[in-house]
């Protein structure tokens, strides 16, 4: 039997991948949009629905960035609402481990797991900066170097809290009068980050622990995922680099006593479909153009150059001046936490080689379209990607809210099913069932 593909649906995010100027673009905040996309994913028998998180609106030049979709709900709250609008679909929340405390995080995730009958997942992210911290009691108190230490200990502590109740804790025997077994919820955690003790409020959820997702790509992030995560949200969507990443991460599992199947690697990808290859290519070009308006092209340019370029002509060549390496104009973008001088040299090289205007260049270097073609061609590419060791499946990021997944579910999913590489029905009730993950081992109380 060929390897089975796992699929997740990413609700369109607050970056320029999401096209808001399309006449079919709907609300990014109305609950109906979330229900539509989630039900579409469930109709397509997807593994899970994925929500990103933002804790501070992004800024450029000291002003709130106004060119992309802005604004979203709190992820766990909207996923709890979606638990009532879906039956089998996994529900994955991105929740930061720096600006939350383990007790509250663990109880909210356990609650989602109960209320969805075992469909909860937690994407652990580690934003730490002072910019984000300005919205929180603690402020930006964490050194970048400590963010994984805190993330690891947050997750470890959450697992201790989930394990502080046994699976058979609730007795509810009217005759004997025993509601709960003794000692439920007792915990004590003493570590570098947390020194806490007491009684945990919430019984263990149906999955024991929610599915843990990790997106870090650094050496530390990869080790964290290999030791602790069930799913990696990967950014490696080109087949060659994806294979390298896949091999690298899977090879790290053995030293933690884990099998290759215990960690699913799912790159975030985009797709564009058409009745013919030509039509798909035309649609893809139109989407790329809509994703990078003239204003967005300049915004990207300014973010890399570190200079005000509002008078620059987006339809002309790149600016002659070199980037200002010290000036940081963009706050809240992970992609600009990098060597901008090197990035600018690379951009200049591409622009010169291909003779591109500024806007064309930005489209060229920022475009994230992964799979473009007829449904049959895309299905074949997805299958090849997985069968040849690129990934265990995909997190699909549609460019339109809320209908961006409709054609994929209608036209590509049946072809994957025909190929025998994607489920035609859910086989179990929980997200762990969908992903083929074992329940977390319950720690022996006497251990």
């Amino acid at each position: 039997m060929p390897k089975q593909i796992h699929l997740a649906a990413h609700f369109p995010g607050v970056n320029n991948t999401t096209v808001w100027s399309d006449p079919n673009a709907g609300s990014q905040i109305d609950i109906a949009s979330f229900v539509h996309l989630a039900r579409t994913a469930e109709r397509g028998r997807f593994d899970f629905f994925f929500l990103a998180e933002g804790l501070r609106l992004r800024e450029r030049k000291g002003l709130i960035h106004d060119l992309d979709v802005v604004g979203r709900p709190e992820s766990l709250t909207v996923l709890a609402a979606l638990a009532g609008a879906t039956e089998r679909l996994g529900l994955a929340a991105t929740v930061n481990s720096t600006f939350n405390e383990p007790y509250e995080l663990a109880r909210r995730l356990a609650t989602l797991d109960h209320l969805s009958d075992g469909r909860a997942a937690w994407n652990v992210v580690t934003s730490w900066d002072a910019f984000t911290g300005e919205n929180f009691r603690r402020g930006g108190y964490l050194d970048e170097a400590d963010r994984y230490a805190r993330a690891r200990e947050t997750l470890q502590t959450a697992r201790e809290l989930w394990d502080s109740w046994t699976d058979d804790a609730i007795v509810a025997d009217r005759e004997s009068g025993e509601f709960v077994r003794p000692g439920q919820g007792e915990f004590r955690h003493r570590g570098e980050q947390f020194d806490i003790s007491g009684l945990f409020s919430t019984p263990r959820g149906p999955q024991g622990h929610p599915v843990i997702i990790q997106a870090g790509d650094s050496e530390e992030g990869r080790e964290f995922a290999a030791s602790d995560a069930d799913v990696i949200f990967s950014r490696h969507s080109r087949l060659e680099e994806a294979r390298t990443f896949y091999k690298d991460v899977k090879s790290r599992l053995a030293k933690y006593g884990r099998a290759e199947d215990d960690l699913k690697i799912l790159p975030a990808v985009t797709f564009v479909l058409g009745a013919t290859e030509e039509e798909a290519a035309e649609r893809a070009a139109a989407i790329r153009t809509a994703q990078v308006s003239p204003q967005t092209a300049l915004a990207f340019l300014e973010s890399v150059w570190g200079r005000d370029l509002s008078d620059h002509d987006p339809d002309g060549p790149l600016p002659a001046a070199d980037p200002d390496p010290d000036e940081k104009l963009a706050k809240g973008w992970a992609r600009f936490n990098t060597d901008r001088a090197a990035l600018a040299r690379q951009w200049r090289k591409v622009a010169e080689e291909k003779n591109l205007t500024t806007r064309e260049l930005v489209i060229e270097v920022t475009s994230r379209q992964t799979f473009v073609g007829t449904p049959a061609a895309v299905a074949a590419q997805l299958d090849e990607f997985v069968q040849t060791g690129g990934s265990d499946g995909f997190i699909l990021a549609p460019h339109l809210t809320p209908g961006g997944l409709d054609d994929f579910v209608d036209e590509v999913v049946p072809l994957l099913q025909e190929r025998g590489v994607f489920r035609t029905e859910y086989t179990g009730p929980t997200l762990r069932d969908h992903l083929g993950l074992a329940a977390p081992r319950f720690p022996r109380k006497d251990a």
Partner: protein
Amino acid sequence: MTTVHRDHVHLAVALDGAGWHPAAWREASARPAELFSARYWSDLVAEAERGLLDLVTFEDLLGQQSSRLEGPDGRTDQVRGRLDAVLLAARLATVTSHIGLVPATSVTHTEPFHVGAGIASLDHATNGRAGWRPQITAWPHLAAHFGRRTLPDLDVHHLQAPGTRETVAELFAEAADAVEVVRRLWDSWEDGAEIRDAATGRFIDRDKLHYIDFQGAHFSVRGPSITPRSPQGQPLVTALAHDRVPYEFAARSADVVYTTPHSRADAAAIIAEVEEAAVTVGRTGEPLRVFADLLVFVGADAAARKERLDELDGAPLASDALIVAGTAAELADLIEDWRGAGVDGFRLRPGGLPHDLAGITGDLVPELQRRGIFRTAYAEATLRERFGLARPASRYAAAS
């Protein structure tokens, strides 16, 4: 906004576990093995909506229930364990269409930024039916669950004792700051901030987004919220209060206050004190709506049921609220009587669930309808409208 019948009483039900009697889970009608399942709560809130109730509240605590206020009791014969109230309310958003959903949250150990976004998201998910009950978490053993601060021991039996009084007052001052932050965050996106202007490439008009720049003794928050302004603008804020300090907190921060009078005269005295508190804090605009909390057993056999549960629990039921065991007609009499003292509404805490909820929706509500003091259909689109509260403009709108 004039759709509210001034002669109608507001009716809320406080949902918690198997009901408010600690032995209620042992009644034959109880569903004690399902207390953590969505189906149980969906059934309860559907019943409440069938009864046309204004709203349901969900209790919460950052710890386990206990028969002792000051710490765990080690008992295994009562319900222990709860779900997060905001997420529970959100789970019910898509399976209800009219009833208000009002979760409690702590504001002592939580982040106002997260709480504000959570309640705003609940308001989006319910299309304008969200409320909120901020509460303090004063106990040192619960502070140890977070480990970020220590709180002094409280004298639970003497809240006026030196030390205890100051601690509680300080926590309520911090709670008022938390509500202020949340309310500013809810206003931090003006209506119409989303413009989708293709000509200029702008999705939002950023002049309509505002930093809230709150600086307080306990935290500072920059803003704006990550969540756009919600359908109600300002979801309904409610507070439970038993004393002057929390009355002032409610008068400063809330739209509705739940109180615990034990008689009509007591209700009148509390209302007078709430009005004084409003003057003290300089409240302007809409007056606080005053609710009376009652712990109720409804039906012809109510007193016998309560007595049997007391026996099972090994002690007579104790509560901050008046305990009423009687028929729907007797309860309706009390409601009519206290309304004469100025009580706007009642939050009924069912002794047993689902039994006493069914008594409320099946017997009490029809009785109140016969007397012409309760709605016969839902009329309003949002929870604020149900209380005659207009949708306020953002506080930042005038400045821009």
